Each structure stands twice: as structure tokens, then as C-alpha cells.
């Protein structure tokens, strides 16, 4: 199985540990992983700002880097959703996966050698949850399920908690986080408050952009709650 690791631009630049954990985890699970070296950005930040009409260069660069693999896997629900919905090449759209859904749906992971003896708060990023359907949604009358908690339950020592409002948005929203700064920060503060009420050590999610936003707020208030991408936990060992 030839897997290409898609590392969104801001993860490459600011959260290399998330990409490293993704790479190691996929290798541990028996994938032959390539990292196309001229990859940059999926085009989502521009498209969500209303500029999908100028992202063809991004699309072309993405195709040049990622054609010919069985699967394209990335640790970001929103970037993957963007590609699935808007990339012009149908083959790319069909083969791109968010890493947790890839683990559950394609690799059908039944156990993990992971160990993470901490209490964490789970943040469901909207694009992964509502867009990719990584978990059920509280608005719908449907049977509860979650690919994230399924995986976390395989990690020894890890205790996870939902915040009181299980799947409310954290307020990142791409350019929204600066164009609507006041609401964005207020939404983030409210999410954090509910996690803090649960006395968690880390806020954990499958989308680094949401975590970057909440981390920014946590650090400003000198909180001792940290953030981690879920792959860092799935890849953690004793």
C-alpha cells in the first residue's frame, strides 16, 4: 500500500511534531509512506475566503506531488475536506483521507501499542466531524459514533472527556479568526473554559488549526493546559 503523507503548510512550518507522529504511526502500522517534497498548501485558506478562483496553481502543484499513490493521508480534517470537495481531479478527491478515518476505515486498526497516561479533553473539529463525518453530530437524530474515541480507547492510560457542549465550534474558522477577532476569541475562550472545568491536561483534536487557535488563547492566559494533535497520542509509547 503506497501512502503519500500530506503535510498541510502550517503544520510543516509550525507543528512538525504532528507530521513526524503521523509518519511514524503510519509506518508502525505497515504503510510504505512517501513524503512528496514539493507539497505546499491545499488552497483551503484562499477558497474559504472567497478566492477559490485563484487556487488553480495550488491544485496543479498538489496534483504534481500526489498523483500515483494508493492513498493520500493528512493530519488535518479541514484541508482534507477541502480537497475532497473542491480539488478538480476526481482521483485525488477519491484517494485523500484524514488520518483517523484512514486508520479506522482503511487500515481497520484493532489495537495500538500506545501509552499515554493523561486526562485529555476531546475537541471535535467541525470540518472533520460534520464535513467528513468522523463522528456523529449532536444536531442529528442518529446513533452516536466517533472514530476519534474509538482510537483513543485503544491507547493505554488515556482518559478522555467531552466538554459540556460536545461539538460546538472553537471559533478558528480560517480568516474568520482575524476578520471576526472578537467572536472568534470568545468562542475559543468558551470551549477552553468547559475543558478546564473537566480538569484535563491537554485539549486534543484532529485539526491543528483549531488547536493553534486555542493554544494561542491558553498561552496568553498562562494556563497549564496544553494542546496535542490526536496522532501525537496515538503514537505515544511508554
Amino acid at each position, binding site marked *: 500500500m503506497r501512502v503519500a503523507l500530506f503535510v498541510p503548510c502550517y503544520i510543516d512550518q509550525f507543528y512538525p511534531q504532528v507530521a513526524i507522529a503521523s509518519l511514524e504511526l503510519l509506518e508502525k502500522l505497515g504503510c510504505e509512506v512517501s513524503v512528496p*517534497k514539493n507539497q505546499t498548501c491545499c488552497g483551503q485558506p484562499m477558497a474559504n475566503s472567497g478566492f477559490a478562483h485563484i*487556487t488553480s496553481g495550488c491544485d496543479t502543484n498538489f496534483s504534481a506531488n500526489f498523483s500515483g499513490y494508493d492513498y493520500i493521508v493528512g493530519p488535518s480534517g479541514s484541508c482534507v475536506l477541502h480537497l475532497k470537495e473542491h480539488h478538480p481531479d476526481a482521483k485525488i478527491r477519491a484517494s485523500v483521507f484524514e488520518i483517523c478515518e484512514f486508520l479506522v476505515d482503511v487500515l481497520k486498526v484493532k489495537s495500538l501499542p500506545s501509552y499515554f497516561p493523561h486526562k485529555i479533553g476531546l475537541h471535535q473539529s467541525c470540518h472533520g466531524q460534520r464535513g467528513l463525518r468522523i463522528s456523529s453530530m449532536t444536531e442529528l437524530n442518529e446513533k452516536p459514533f466517533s472514530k476519534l474515541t474509538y482510537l483513543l480507547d485503544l491507547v493505554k492510560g488515556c482518559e478522555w472527556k467531552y466538554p459540556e457542549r460536545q461539538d460546538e465550534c472553537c471559533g478558528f474558522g480560517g480568516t474568520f479568526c482575524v476578520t471576526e477577532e472578537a467572536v472568534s476569541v470568545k468562542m475559543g475562550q468558551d470551549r477552553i473554559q468547559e475543558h478546564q472545568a473537566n480538569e484535563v491536561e491537554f485539549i486534543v483534536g484532529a485539526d491543528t488549526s483549531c488547536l493553534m487557535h486555542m493554544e494561542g488563547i491558553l498561552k*496568553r492566559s498562562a494556563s497549564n493546559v496544553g494542546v496535542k494533535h490526536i496522532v501525537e497520542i496515538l503514537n505515544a509509547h511508554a
Partner: protein
Amino acid sequence: MLNHAEASEKFITNQERTDWHDDTLWFVRSKRDKASKLLPEWEALREQASQIKEHMLSNLPQYLLEFEAKAQANGIQVHWAKDAHEHNEIVYSIIQKHGDKALVKSKSMLTEECHLNAYLEQKGIDVVDTDLGERIVQFRKEVPSHIVLPAIHLKKEDVGETFHQHLGTPKGNKDPQFLTEAARIHLREKFLGAKVAITGVNFAVAETGEFVVCTNEGNADMGAHLSDVHIACMGIEKIIPKRQDLGVFLRLLARSATGQLITTYSSHFAKPRAGQEMHIVLVDNGRSRQLARDEFRNSLKCIRCAACFNTCPVYRRSGGHSYHQPVAGPIGSILAPNFDKKANVDLPFASTLCGSCSNVCPVKINIHEQLWFWRQDLMKEGLAPAGKVLGMKLMAWMMSNPSVFRLAGGIGRKVMSWFPFLVNNGMNPWFKQREMPAPPKQSFQEWYKSNRS
């Protein structure tokens, strides 16, 4: 006028009130969740409602004509208005014919959209809104901030003060029961004095020529039954093909709106009673234009339940007035650009595209996708500020050129300042209440090069 971001920032300054607003509406959403989960067929009902509306929109002219013919046969006078101005003129001409100077009006978002109150007041007509929440905001010379709960931006202290000023209730009295009683006495007088009553329309049945008005306060009924002239104003998209379709919509409407099983009053008006005149004004006001836009046509399925307001994390923390439109919230943000793109260019951006609105919508409007489509439409039309266009182009160029991206990334993670949400150096709004991520020593690609190849 403040744009959405500016108005929200002002709203949020009062943290305590913002939290109260957020919690109150979240409570309404929770009630909606409970009610919807009691029906195993809930998702199927939503799908059916969406399909019925789909069918209606595809056959709108035919159903409108059928409705007109049936309504006329029932003795109702039917009027057609192509826009808000025509609507207002028609309503005024009916009032004028009867020589009245005052009328009572129950909730109708359409008349808000057409700014009927202001128009009639200019002509010297005293319009009394009889929905309690609407009466409160009318006293305060405000507009509704929510389509189901018009005064939800106000606390009971505010209402007490308003009633003290306008109804002479004792200063400082904020007891909801007492204040409601005061409003009841005040409104009863108005009901008894008015010869003309205006109501909205929730559903108009093509098959029978009847229309249905849903309220919890019974104020539409009180107005209509006591008046000599009943004028019902409706947007042309309120048509449903058959009476039996109400079995779908009435079950969805109240559960979605407030978590009630059904609205307290779902009143059917089929024909005028002896001696009464009944009018229906069918209003287009941009609806056919929206119907012709493929991406946005199904925004016309909306039954105005406000579930999308209550679930919207942005609406709950910014208040209805920040949308500067009669219909606020997520649905307002996809309807408003149809009226005026330039004036409403901020609204499709007043969202994180979290998608919760589309999930609660009882007629399954893909609201968050339409927000995305409007963003594309508005930016393509050149309605973006110059700085934003430049930033986007710069980013698109950099991201299409891996070597530029790497170079920019190399120098102290400079690439960060090129990001659209982190552009605007110096005065960067990110930094106001948040720290920047700490730049790591190596990017992932640099790590990969030195460790794996």
C-alpha cells in the same frame, strides 16, 4: 452602519450579557434537540419536508395560480406585489379604502423585510405590533433581533424599564408575570379598537386556497377575528401543494423553533366570515431572482423556525442586530446578498462554516455551503478590500511555487506572516488576545531531509 465584526465586538464588550444571550439560546437549542430525538422518524421528516419544498419551488408558478384561483373562489381578494414598495402600497390602499388610522399586526417577517411599519407611519397610520416581543422592541424603536424571539437581546430589567416608560408600570418592577399582564391589558385595548389586522402566513395551501398562521400567543387570531379587514402578507415561497403536507411541516416547525410539540395556535384561514374582508398579498421582492440562482435557490425552502440562529455559535455571541438585516443569523446571511451584495458583503463571512446550521435546519437547507458560495460570488465581483485581494494573490503565488514557500519558511518561519489570517503585520488581530505559535527549529520537510533521506 457597523459591519458584523464591528457590531459583534461591541456586543461582546459586555461579557456577562453575551454569556447570558449565549446560554439562553443554547437552552432553546437543547430543547429542540430533545424534542427532535423523541421522534424516530425525525430525519425522514426533514428529508420529506425538503423534498416537498423542492417540488414546490420547481412548480411554483403553477401552485401560485392554483392557490390564487382557490382563494378567490373562497372569497379572498388576492394581490400580487413584485417588490417591497408595491407590497406597502397595496396594504396602504386597502387601509385607506376603509379610512382607518390604526391597525394591529401580528408577527410577519415579510413586513419587516418590506419595512411596512416605517412606510405606514409616514402616512400617518399607527401600527401596533401585537406579538409581545415585537411590541417591546417597537416601544424601544428597535427592530427584532431574532425571528422567533424578537426581544431576546433584552433582559427582564430592560423590559421593565421600557414598560415603565410606555405603559406606566411601576419603576423597577421586572416581574415577568406582572409585565405580561400589563402588556395584555394594553394590547386588548388595541385589538378592540382596530378595524384592520395584518398577519403573516406560515403556510399557504394551493389545493384549498387556505393559509395557516402559527403563533404561541394567539395574537394573530385575536387581531383577525376582531377586525373587519384581515390582510395576510406572504412571500411567494410560502406555498405548499397540499393540506396533508401540513402534517410534515407543523410537526417540524415548533420542535425546531422552541422544542414544543406544536405551536399553541395553528390557525387555518380559508374564507372571510360574513361581513369581513380578507386579503392576501403575494410578494416576490427578489425571490424569483434567488430562485434563478442554482446555488441559492433552496434558501427559499426556509420556514423561519430560527433553529439555525439558536445553534449558531456566532449568532449567540454577536446578537441579531449585528447582522443589520431584518432576518439575522445564518439564513439571513444567505438571503441578504440577494437584496444588496455590497451592503451585505460582510454577512457570508460572519461564520466559521462549522455546518451546525445545516444540520438543524428542518428543511435541510445547505446553509453553510451557501455561505461559501456567496463568498466566492462576492469576491469575484470585486467586493473585497484591495489589501485582502493582494494578500490572497500573494499567498496563492507562494503556494504554487514550492521553492518560494521553502525560502519564505526558511527565514525564521517568515511564512507565517504571509498567511491570510496572520497578514496585516504590526496591527495583527491574531495577537490581540492570543499568542503566536512558537516557531520550531526545523520545519517538517527540513527534519525529513536530515533524518530520513
